[in-house]
């Protein structure tokens, strides 16, 4: 069995411009920020980003790396409106596939199950249909005859996620209250890169934690990156909460100035 450990820069070196990239976490929670920062150091661009958006989307949008975004929202949680994403939208800089949160989840599930679509009772009657003219509907073949949105699979070229613990083989563990959708992002992707707070021996994973914390299976993971503080400034319960001061600084600093600081040799990453 292969050792999949690599650095954040090595993981990002495997990505190519024009890819469809899924990013795990939710809003400003357990985002793979060390991998996002590595992406900002690289010259990868023209990305289609699929994300329950937070500062990952804000930074990549500010840096002009996103051609198209698939999202239901972009938020910093404690700061409801993501300022850099907002500015990018208001200057017409990114193409948006705006869909509902559940449509997004059904799209990931369809991709993970190798289905072309899944029927979802969401979107009909709303302007999600108007702004996504490519969306189709499907009618139940049974007696109810109900019409649904046929949510297309959100198949990903690559996924980036961050978890609390992992082994060198790519088994990933979350220790906080919410898994978010990181397992689905990995299963929906051709390649998945998983950063973690700490790499441990496989036997350590279940020594104290229950087996259902083993969220991500190694068969869905291409590379493992040890990155302590790798979700900073987003939260990574129970290892740390959101760094609100750092988030405020990000939200209030003009991007060129912030990017200059950000792309300095990273202090908080173990890679």
């Amino acid at each position, binding site marked *: 069995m292969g050792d999949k450990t690599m650095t954040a820069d090595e993981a990002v070196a495997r990505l190519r411009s024009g890819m469809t990239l899924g990013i795990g976490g939710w809003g400003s929670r357990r985002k793979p920020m060390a991998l996002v920062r590595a992406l900002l150091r690289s010259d990868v661009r023209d990305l289609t980003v699929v994300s329950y958006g937070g500062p990952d989307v804000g930074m990549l949008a500010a840096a002009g790396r996103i051609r198209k975004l698939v999202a239901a929202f972009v938020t910093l949680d404690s700061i409801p409106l993501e300022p850099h994403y907002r500015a990018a939208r208001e200057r017409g800089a990114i193409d948006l596939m705006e869909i509902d949160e*559940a449509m997004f989840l059904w799209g990931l599930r369809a991709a993970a199950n190798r289905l072309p679509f899944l029927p979802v009772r969401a979107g009909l009657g709303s302007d999600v249909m108007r702004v996504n003219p490519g969306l189709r509907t499907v009618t139940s073949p049974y007696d109810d005859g109900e019409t649904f949105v046929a949510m297309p699979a959100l198949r990903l070229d690559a996924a980036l996620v961050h978890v609390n613990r992992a082994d060198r083989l790519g088994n990933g563990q979350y220790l906080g209250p919410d898994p978010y959708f990181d397992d689905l992002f990995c299963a929906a992707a051709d390649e998945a890169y998983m950063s973690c707070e700490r790499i441990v021996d496989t036997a350590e994973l279940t020594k104290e934690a229950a087996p259902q914390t083993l969220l991500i299976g190694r068969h869905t993971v291409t590379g493992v990156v040890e990155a302590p503080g790798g979700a900073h400034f987003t939260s990574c319960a129970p290892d740390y909460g959101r760094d609100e001061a750092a988030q405020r600084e990000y939200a209030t600093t003009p991007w060129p100035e912030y990017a200059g600081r950000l792309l300095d040799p990273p202090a908080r990453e173990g890679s």
Partner: protein
Amino acid sequence: MTVTRAEYCVIACAEAWRGDGEVLASPMGLIPALGARLARLTFAPDLLLTDGEAMLVRPDGTPEGWLPYRRHLEFVTGGRRHVMMGASQIDRFGNQNISCVGDWARPKRQLLGVRGAPVNTLNNPTSYWVPRHSRRVFVETVDMVCGVGYDHAGGARFHRIPRVVSDLGVFDFATPDHSMRLASLHPGVTVEDVREATSFALTVPDDVPPTREPTAEDLRLVREVLDPANARAREVS
């Protein structure tokens, strides 16, 4: 001590969940959250509440269940939920917008995005809370339909908008064409106040009742247990 406008708003929000039974109350915003917890502590003891993150909790904070986002979305599609969302814009048939203002392709102001409004409105009862009732919120036409109104729902099986609560009163859609109706006025507010703050024609019954008075127990719970720091006064003054 006289009852404040914010306290009437809490009462009006709490009443949204009356008779719902054993369902998840999902309040968004402070005053709806106070309303849901007040309902749970008084007339709706079977309601389920979350801690705002991934746990179902009793009013004292004791966890009684696990509700990460993926299961929360199943609660929505299973229908055993009544959400009260915010609205940056809402129109006379209950279409709601939280996505953006202006042309969607290049918005004047990018807001939150559609979030879960489409799935909410087609699957479980969805009420709304507007802390500052104005013509900018109660508009003729919303710029982006996120929450689906009665004229767009096409009679969808599970679509229902029980009420809209604002700092001026309570509104519902109990009219033949499901257009918005003034259901109650908070004490101190006139029909004229509401008309002036609303861009579209509201149905106003001949006799508009006042929003109900809080009981002594309601006031004790709100003031001493649920919101002793009076954060509610910052949302509605």
